């Protein structure tokens, strides 16, 4: 998505954000986020969600990654078939005219 759908400016912002995020995670627990223990991950993510002393670049990176993670998950085959029960043609079961007394 970043490669194909972002403008060069946004790609640069994303890259800067990635670096800022790496620096933030290193400053916090002395290593990169990917090497964190689950507890450390939770702690940093909570701090970011609360926007406590988080550099703007790192926050923007986090928001972008979170947005695409949620979008990717909720539009995946697994989510749309197992959880949302995706129906390609939902029409036949749609009742457009229901007496108010039945609502």
């Amino acid at each position, binding site marked *: 998505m970043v490669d194909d*759908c*972002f403008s060069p400016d946004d790609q640069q912002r994303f890259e800067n954000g990635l670096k800022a995020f790496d620096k933030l995670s290193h400053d916090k627990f002395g290593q990169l986020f990917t090497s964190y223990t689950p507890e450390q991950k939770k702690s940093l993510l909570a701090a970011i969600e609360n926007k406590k002393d988080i550099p703007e670049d790192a926050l923007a990176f986090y928001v972008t990654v979170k947005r695409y993670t949620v979008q990717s998950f909720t539009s*995946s085959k697994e989510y749309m078939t197992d959880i949302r029960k995706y129906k390609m043609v939902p029409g036949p079961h749609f009742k457009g005219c229901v007496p108010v007394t039945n609502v």
Partner: protein
Amino acid sequence: MGDNNNTFDAIVIGSGMSGGWVAKELCEKGLKTLLLERGRDVKHIKDYPTTSMLPWEFKHRGQVPYAIAKDNPVISRCYAFKEDAMHFFVKDTEHPYTQEKPFDWIRGYQVGGKSIMWARQTQRWSDFDFEGPAVMALP
């Protein structure tokens, strides 16, 4: 002047939502009707490459890649210009036009015109919708 083969009761220009229906109505009333369409034919199955695709099969989940959006600022402002229907739109560079005032000219050159690219939502209108203007109009 023309011979009988080239003489028509009605000539409809464009086979889109309006032209298509006009031609149908005229034909059904028995008029010898010529329907002109500048675009290509759209054959069932073969010319609908995305219709049977499931949402997760689109590489960018519907989003138009940046390079295409950048080259087509006008049609990119149309809600329906997405990964699933973008091949039916006239690209900005294919048929440029002069805009003296802002005007987004969204076009689809094919049999069916822009009826191919709509969002498939229709309102069921009641009598009120059709009588509204007459009832509400100032004397």
